[in-house]
């Protein structure tokens, strides 16, 4: 672990109108570390991720990536940050106007200006990395199953060999076995790239497998943060309730508004 964190969030606030979603999030992701942010629906996990990516601008607070302040960054600094990140979206978010290989090669061709013929070979190699055969390369993403789409999304995220990877609910919406395949692939890919990873999930099995460290988000703040091995022995009642999936406990479930 180096001294400067790869990603560093300090006192990040973000609200939408009267609704305060993030109320002072503090979180660090070290180089090569994989952090999972867990929390219930509507606690602001996605908002946190979108703030780091610059898709949303925080109301206050500081977000640093490789020591560069992103909230006030210039377009060039933001582009430089995005050039070294990859993201797997919840619904895979594949471009349905392009074929599978064009999706995987997108960052290489449009972002790095690589020649399409070379990018295609690399894209097929990436597809093989995530366990997909080369014969789907010319298919349309819409004709693939959910699990295949997720893996194509993963291949696209790692195609540019990013230093930072973001995973948004990687196992949501697919069956448990395919979920486990995705988890294994995420672990393998982040390790091979030596990348830092930030995952948001409410799937504890996935968090245990992917993460080195777990942070729990509740009411706009990180209320627990520790190594993944400690989540069962922690005496934090909020975390225990979430991990066990109990209805009874200190977590206030505002079911009418979730």
């Amino acid at each position, binding site marked *: 672990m180096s001294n400067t964190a790869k990603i560093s969030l300090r006192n990040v606030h973000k609200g939408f109108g009267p609704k305060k979603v993030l109320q002072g999030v503090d979180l660090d992701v070290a180089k090569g570390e994989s952090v999972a942010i867990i929390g219930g629906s509507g606690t602001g996990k996605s908002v946190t991720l979108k703030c780091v*990516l610059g898709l949303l601008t925080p109301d206050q607070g500081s977000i640093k990536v490789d020591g560069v302040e992103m909230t006030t960054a210039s377009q060039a600094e933001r582009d430089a940050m*995005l050039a070294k990140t990859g993201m797997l979206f919840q619904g895979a978010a594949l471009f349905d106007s392009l074929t599978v290989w064009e999706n995987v090669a997108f960052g290489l061709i*449009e972002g790095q200006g690589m020649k399409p013929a070379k990018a295609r070979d690399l894209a097929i190699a990436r597809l093989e990395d995530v366990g997909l055969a080369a014969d789907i390369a010319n298919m349309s993403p819409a004709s693939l199953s959910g699990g295949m789409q997720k893996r194509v999304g993963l291949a696209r995220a790692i195609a540019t060999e990013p230093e930072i990877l973001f995973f948004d609910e990687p196992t949501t919406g697919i069956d448990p076995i395919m979920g486990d395949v995705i988890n294994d692939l995420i672990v393998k890919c982040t390790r091979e790239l030596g990348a830092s990873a930030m995952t948001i999930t409410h799937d504890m099995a996935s968090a245990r497998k992917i993460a080195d460290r777990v942070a729990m988000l509740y009411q706009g703040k990180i209320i627990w943060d520790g190594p993944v091995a400690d989540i069962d022995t922690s005496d934090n009642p909020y975390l225990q309730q979430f991990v066990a999936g109990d209805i009874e406990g200190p977590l206030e479930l505002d079911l009418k508004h979730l």
Partner: protein
Amino acid sequence: MPIFAPVGHMFLTFLALVGRVTVFAGRTIGHMVTPPIYFRLIFKQMREIGYFSLPVVAMTTLFAGMVLALQSYSGFSRFSAESAVATVVVISMTRELGPVLAGLMVAGRVGAAIAAEIGTMRVTEQIDALVTLSTNPFKYLVVPRVIAGLITLPVLVLIGDIIGVMGGYLVGVNKLGFNDGSYIRNTFQYLEQLDVVSGLVKAAVFGFIITLMGCYHGYHSRGGAQGVGQATTNAVVSSSILILISNYIVTELFFTR
């Protein structure tokens, strides 16, 4: 006074919308003149917006020209001015009907398609995915469509003008008993360059409006399938209204001295 509050609220909402559209248009124009420009996507959109709209525009202008000849003949025969039919057809087509009808038809066909496509990309996070892949969504999605609209609408309208005049000719010669040579001579005798040029300028303005409104409503759509449907409706309605308003403004700029 409970009557004034909703009226004021609506007015403020309208002003906010105008502001947002203006900022969106400004950003689009800014990205149109700075690299990178995706020429491949511009050509693809020109095919989508221009080439595939040809049948619709051709049908519309053909029948518009035909009915124009029929109507003006029956009207003008009341004061024995039948010989003006050819001139009326060509001036109406080039100045007004060609651009406005083509604009409205393309607004329905292309504006809706653009809003639906970009709106779906928004709600399925494909636009966010573009950003994470170091690609500016304005340059990749909006600019190619707007440039394609600006270029192809005048071409479509020029073809539509010719087909409309041909429609008038077919009715005039075959149904109303005009001599074909004199019909063609009358068509060109009083036609001025400005008639055609003003129509083409209108077409370019309409092309900008249609693609911009399609992109704007798609880009800002939210809330799943219903939101995309709403965006599609809004794109068609707002571009149709803006076409009619800008049509008046451009006409006034050209023809009042």
